[in-house]
């Protein structure tokens, strides 16, 4: 259940940004979570619902953009089929992940009366 420690880091980061921008209340967080990031989206929501109480994120919505994992050949850019061996048939090179391991805080929507 590392999702709890991820939510802890997330809320800390939001508090820093709110302090920086004079934010008083957070309405929505946008995060991007990759399929192969090791973060389970449902558990992340549960952890967020639990930990946001009595923080600046209380009542905030967590908007999650889930990213499908895609592997491709670093040389010829050929995309590897899902579940296939992670090596290019043509070039023989080990595949590289194009996306799918993101654990990113993209954007915070906050009330900032002084901005």
């Amino acid at each position: 259940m590392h999702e709890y420690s991820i939510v802890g880091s997330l809320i800390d980061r939001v508090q820093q940004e709110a302090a920086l921008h004079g934010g008083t209340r957070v309405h929505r967080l946008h995060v991007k979570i990759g399929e192969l990031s090791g973060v389970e989206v449902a558990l992340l929501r549960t952890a967020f619902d639990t930990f946001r109480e009595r923080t600046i994120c209380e009542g905030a919505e967590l908007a999650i953009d889930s990213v499908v994992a895609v592997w491709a050949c670093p040389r010829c850019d050929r995309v590897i089929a899902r579940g296939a061996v992670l090596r290019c048939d043509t070039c023989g090179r080990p595949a590289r992940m194009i996306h799918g391991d993101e654990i990113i805080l993209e954007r915070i929507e906050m009330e900032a009366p002084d901005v």
Partner: protein
Amino acid sequence: MCETCGCGDPEIVPVEVQERILSDNDAQAAHNRSHFESLGVLAINLMGSPGAGKTAVLEATVRAAGATLRLGAVSGDLATDRDADRLNAAGIQSSTITTGSACHLDARLVHHALHHAPCGDCDMFFIENVGNLVCPAIYDLGQAANVVALSVTEGEDKPLKYPVMFQKSDLVLLTKIDLIPHLDFDVDAVEDALARVMPDAKMLKVSAKTGEGIDAWLEWLEARRPARRPDAESLAHHEHHHHPHGHSHEHH
């Protein structure tokens, strides 16, 4: 003004961040990595299920190489010092990070452990993670390489079930191979599963009990050792440096 949902609320502002949520851990891991590299110590993050044989592999490693290499370790354990006790008895200078209910080590915990048990006089330093095939994979600790121990009793499909862990590993040690004659274990099947989750998959077959394959494991480690700085030992004991959390101090 809020432009996202179109409510037009003038007091809602979007703040762009676009940063990894674990950026604090990443920064701490980079700090640990610079420690290891400046000391010329090869740091390995050893992961695997509970009972995969992580501690036994380290015991076999020191049996085979203890005369020529100085090995150090820190073991992540929920509740006991048993792994560190076993390693100390085997001749690996070792301490425990007691994680309580936490299912993984993070870079801050490793940094804290290094303050109390410095690794500067080691050639190789093993961070034996908490037994778990899920959580440890996503925390960078500052290691040079990730190694996953997978025992033959766990079944061939473990890599497909836990792709994140295997995708992040640089080497898989297939452990307890002395048991293969007693099991219906298909080595080709585990190699095929690894190739589908781990780019440039590498697997070494070892038995901590018989010592089979330990030579190849030592060769793999040896090939990754950084050049040892001649002043590494004095650095280990007298280094002053800056920390991300804003203090500098002497390491003992």
